[in-house]
């Protein structure tokens, strides 16, 4: 397993490509690793806050240091669970809203930001300027001390988006197989 904290010492923004099968399990393991001693804000585009809380509990993740930005719950529930640990965005396709919320959290000097995931961003905003959004978002991150990990599933369907993202991040790490970036094998 790649040492993400070490990678982030040298690279502020990393794109982490992961196989689909172990995706959720690996993401929670990484969150456990980050949140044990650092502050994290976690932007989710594919799991509700409630589902993430369930996963954290299952994997004994200390989530006190984590604030979640949930873009899913408002699309499927009338009244999402209220908690000081979560901020709700109207939908995963609301790029301006996501950008504003991320900017707000970046001002609070979190140690890490986790963006889960670019794959879902591509699903929900096919016709929107995802490249422009990413460029702007990463530019904002670079103006802070927060280290960021953008996740994506390493499948052929996402090649175009991944190519765009590769232009803006400092390093691409591919878990499971070698694909232009550093392989975990």
């Amino acid at each position, binding site marked *: 397993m790649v040492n993400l904290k070490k990678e982030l010492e040298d690279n502020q923004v990393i794109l982490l490509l992961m196989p*689909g099968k172990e995706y*959720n399990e690996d993401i929670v393991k990484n969150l456990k690793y980050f949140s044990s001693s650092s502050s994290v804000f976690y932007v989710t585009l*594919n*799991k*509700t806050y*409630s*589902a993430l*809380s*369930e*996963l954290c509990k299952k994997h004994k993740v200390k989530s006190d240091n984590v604030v979640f930005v949930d873009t*899913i719950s408002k*699309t*499927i*529930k*009338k009244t999402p669970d209220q908690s000081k640990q979560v901020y709700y965005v109207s939908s995963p396709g609301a790029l301006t809203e996501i950008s504003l919320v991320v900017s707000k959290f970046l001002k609070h000097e979190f140690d890490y930001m986790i963006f889960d995931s670019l794959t*879902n961003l591509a*699903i929900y905003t096919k016709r929107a300027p995802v490249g422009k959004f990413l460029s702007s978002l990463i530019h904002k991150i670079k103006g802070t001390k927060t280290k960021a990990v953008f996740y994506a599933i390493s499948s052929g*369907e996402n090649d175009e988006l991944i190519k765009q993202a590769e232009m803006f991040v400092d390093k691409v790490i591919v878990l499971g197989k070698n694909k232009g970036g550093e392989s975990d094998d």
Partner: protein
Amino acid sequence: MGKHIMVVDDEKDNITTVKTALEANGYKVTSAKNGDDCLKKLKKEKPDLILMDIMMPGTPVREIIPKIKGTKIAYLSVVRVSEAEKEDLMVSKNIVDFIQKPFDIDDLLKKVKKIVGA
């Protein structure tokens, strides 16, 4: 003709994948691009099962489901929800399953067969 399945999804690729697999196994398959389109098509079609994505543009699925009468529905969800949320989404007795994407197509076929028969 086999049982009739309606696939409701805003992702054309998803519809194509599911439709191809179901048709190859003898099912009649029609599709709708979102919940509103599904309700419109249900005025003319009477499927045995609706496979419905949980997140689509237009009227939210939780408002669409109660308007569907007498047809079994299985959710297809690309997003991960908690067990409590799954229960919340079971807003109608017509909902018979909650299938998490990405799913194995053979598993989907088994589930469909179990719900409506071959």
